């Protein structure tokens, strides 16, 4: 999922200060799962903003709504009747959702309420860790299902650096050395020959190195 974290209230108040009525929007997808921008978080933020504004002597009308997905135009269209009277929109979705709104509603300022972080997986309740950087050319089949791009601080392709100690990365005791994990897993699978395969220098163009990326499925695209 795409993970996110709420921005500090102070920053959000600065955004909405000039307005009297805003629409606060959540998203039912990734940000709901990582407890950053789902229906519940929309309620919490609306309440918090309302109180903070009240305390500063101003009143704001915050309408709340949570879309099934903010990154699809079909769902964004639902908002049209709700926007009547709203001077601005604040979105608790990832950056994709915020941009989708900004593109559709050109006359309304759109503000992000969260900082979009990374593509991650849930390690345990309340803990999300980065697992994919969308490099566009997946190597997981060669690396025992552990990504050296997302999980090695240096994004090394052919084994660990000298900073790998006791299974940990030199940047922090808390961070596992991705190549140690890869080696352990390949050994357990009896696939250590894969470790000996030289992975050539990575072509970063499919990973965004040649500008913004797009997928066009001709059988689906209209």
């Amino acid at each position, binding site marked *: 999922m795409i993970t996110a974290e709420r921005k500090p*209230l102070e920053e959000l108040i600065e955004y909405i200060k000039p307005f009297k009525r805003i629409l606060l929007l959540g998203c039912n997808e990734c940000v709901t799962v990582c407890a950053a921008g789902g229906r519940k978080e929309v309620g*919490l933020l609306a309440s918090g903003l309302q109180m903070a504004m009240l*305390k500063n002597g101003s009143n704001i009308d915050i309408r709340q709504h949570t879309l099934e997905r903010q990154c699809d135009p079909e769902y964004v269209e639902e908002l049209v009747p709700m926007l009547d009277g709203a001077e601005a929109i604040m979105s608790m979705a990832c950056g994709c959702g915020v941009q989708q709104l900004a593109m559709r509603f050109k006359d309304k300022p759109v503000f992000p309420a969260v900082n979009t972080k990374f593509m991650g997986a849930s390690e345990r309740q309340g803990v999300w860790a980065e697992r994919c950087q969308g490099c566009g050319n997946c190597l997981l089949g060669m690396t025992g299902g552990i990504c050296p791009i997302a999980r090695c601080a240096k994004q090394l392709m052919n084994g660990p650096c000298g900073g790998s100690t006791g299974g940990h990365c030199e940047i922090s005791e808390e961070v596992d050395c991705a190549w140690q994990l890869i080696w352990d897993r390949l050994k357990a699978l009896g696939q250590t020959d894969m470790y000996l395969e030289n992975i050539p220098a990575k072509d970063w163009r499919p990973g965004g190195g040649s500008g913004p990326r797009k997928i066009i499925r001709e059988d689906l695209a209209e």
Partner: protein
Amino acid sequence: MENFEPVIVAFCCHYCAYTAADMAGSQRLPYPANVKIIRVPCSGKVDALHIVKAFEKGADGVYVAGCLEGDCHFKSGNTRAGRRVAYVKKYLEEIGIESERLEMVTMSAGMGYRFAQTATEITEKIRKLGPSPIKTALAL
């Protein structure tokens, strides 16, 4: 505000604090009428939103009363509630509400005295803190 009487919302677990309140009543132990009890099936049922909404509606103080450590009827609801309360305390500070206005307390069903004592102590603490800044702003 003159003659300030704090409004305190107490989310009480059915299996401990709520029964302890009953016990306090049976024992004829007085506790301040400022405390408004909301019975919940477990302290773990109390969501951050319930707490924040209580403050938004003008509560001066809120506490969540759950079972003693290790005694939760649902195994870990009370420890989860404790973590949630700690999280909301930080959020309250961000909003500009003193985090002392929110507490997590624990007791067993038989602790009628502890219930009455906690209710009194928290009421007095909130009385000293004065009306919540939200209530003050709402009154203006």
